């Protein structure tokens, strides 16, 4: 099968969906001539013209608000937040408007809006360009949240995002754009709320998302030499959450580690831990262990950033803890 980078897979999804649906248009900063900071929209201005690839001022609240209005009147806009951290600037339009409009109107309007953005650290971008915020969006009812880890999942989920009547927060990771993976030619979509077993195992269930899935797979490989068999589940979406797949795996393994790059305190790991003890308490053979970033702003200096963000070694340590 051919291989594409994460960026190429995303770009292909956008092109296929824009060709399919004339109501899709893109809004964002530097997405036209420049092609986006991570080049996901490269060439799209030339292909679709300035009406459908609309460059905006640095005005996140304004253009996400405009996207809400577009979505309420028959369009399917994709608003790009250059960095996830800028979501706070547009927080009212995302949390109070997009997420609630359908409910507040008793279903008379819907907001089919895709907010594409990227998050995460590891590049020394410091505290205002490195956060992982999927938990925040997952907490507020009304938003679907995708967190793909691979080019294949990125393409399939983004295509689904463009076919959903709900607002979708589509969260990429800045260190995934250059990663490569198999992406078949031709049409496919991945439904929201379906996690995937990325590696099968029988001793420990390891749930992860976004770039941390890559660390999780490395950690599973590392402990395999010691005879520990780890099942790695990639959530692919934070909302809806595929609890069934997690429970099915925990029934088999009796042990659970949840790993994510977001802060450990009240991260999605806390929610998953709580759900699993509610639904599968009798199956657990050990306390659940969570891996996440330390609860401090993401620091700039490389040794400090490496200390604060979770990596393969943190996950290996957690696995050893649950099997001890």
């Amino acid at each position, binding site marked *: 099968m051919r291989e594409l980078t994460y960026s190429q897979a995303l770009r292909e999804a956008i092109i296929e969906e824009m060709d399919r649906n004339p109501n899709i*248009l893109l809004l964002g900063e530097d997405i036209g001539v420049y092609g986006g900071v991570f080049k996901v929209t490269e060439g799209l201005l030339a292909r679709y013209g300035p*009406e459908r690839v*609309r460059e*905006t*001022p640095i*005005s996140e*609240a*304004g*253009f*996400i*608000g*405009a*996207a*809400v*209005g*577009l*979505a*309420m*009147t*028959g*369009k399917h*806009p994709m608003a790009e937040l250059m960095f996830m951290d800028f979501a706070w600037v547009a927080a*009212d*339009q995302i949390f*109070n*408007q997009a997420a609630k*409009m*359908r*409910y*507040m*109107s*008793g*279903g*008379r*309007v819907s907001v089919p809006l895709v907010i594409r953005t990227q998050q995460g650290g590891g590049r020394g971008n410091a505290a205002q360009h490195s956060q992982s915020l999927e938990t925040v969006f997952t907490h507020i*009812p*009304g938003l*679907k949240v995708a967190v793909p880890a691979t080019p294949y999942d990125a393409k399939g989920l983004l295509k689904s995002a463009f076919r959903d009547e*709900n607002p979708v927060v589509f969260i990429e990771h800045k260190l995934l754009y250059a990663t490569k993976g198999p992406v078949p030619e031709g049409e496919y979509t991945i439904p929201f709320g379906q996690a995937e077993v990325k590696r099968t195992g029988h001793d420990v269930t390891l749930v992860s998302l976004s770039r941390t899935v890559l660390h999780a797979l490395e950690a599973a490989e590392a402990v395999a030499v010691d005879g520990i068999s780890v099942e790695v589940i990639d959530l692919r979406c934070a909302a*809806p959450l595929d609890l069934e797949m997690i429970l099915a795996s925990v029934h088999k393994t009796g042990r659970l580690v949840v790993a994510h790059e977001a802060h450990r305190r009240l991260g999605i790991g806390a929610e998953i831990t709580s759900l699993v003890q509610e639904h599968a308490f009798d199956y657990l053979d050990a306390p659940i262990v969570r891996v996440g970033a330390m609860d401090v702003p993401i620091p700039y200096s490389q040794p400090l950033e490496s200390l604060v963000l979770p990596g393969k070694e943190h996950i290996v340590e957690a696995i050893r803890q649950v099997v001890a």
Partner: protein
Amino acid sequence: MNLKKNDFLHMFRTMLLIRRFEEQCIQFFQSGHLRGSLHPCIGQEATAVGACYALRRDDYVTCTYRGHGQALAKGLDPKEAMAELLGRRTGCSKGKGGSMHFTDPRVGLLGENAIVAAGVPIALGAALSAQLDRTDRVALSFFGDGAVNQGVFAEALNLAAIWNVPVIFFCENNLYSEMTPIRAMVKVEQLAERAAAFGIPATTVDGYDVLAVYEGTLPAVQRARSGGGPTFIECMTYRLTGHMIGDTEPYRTKQEVAEWRARDPVVTFPQKLVQEFGIPQVEVEATQAEVETHMAEIVRFALDSPWPSADEAVEDVFV
């Protein structure tokens, strides 16, 4: 003026209906039928009616949390509106929105909004949608004087200007930003001055004269329809009741309220119809009687409507 007798009576009927609707809301609030916050638009009926009379049914509006009158003037069914206020499933939002979230896309109503200025970029987006579809629909965003100090207001004006979007920014300047005089919160004399900074033409109209509001809004609507881009309208008005029920109003004098009340458009407009436009008094009275009958039907419909069922709590949103 292109308006005829029927138009005048229609405007009067809508203004009076809004007044009676709001008075009924206050009664329902005091009797405990209506929950949460209530921000009556009593005194501001002429701004809503004059502005909406310059629009078509298929044009879009976004409204404020003092937006009952704006929504009704745009064509929202008052029975659905009152049922919504009583939390009934027959309400325009099935009882899930309440006073500050009237929405009905069938009449172009893209929502009142409980967040100050939040509807402004939404209206801009709706207008952009109309522009992309090559239609001549326009959007009008109602907002209050307090909204001009919100960041997203400035962002929306700038976006409308650079994209030449068919939108009318309609400021209801009722002199008070909630419970604080707007003159203490801005440095300009007229809020319309703000528009020049964005390259948007602006005008100021008398919001206590429904015909002046209409005549001030119509050219802006026509300019937007014909591709001329956005306009800012500052409509000078006044609420004759408090910001919300329970407002003790220490920020204004009784004399000031009395001066505006003397010009109350719901009282003075029908007098003007008889005295200046030669409409027989009996026709004005017939209109008043129609409104009273209509209100009785509205109230009965709302009170007789069923409550939502438990399963409706998880409908109209993905869960």
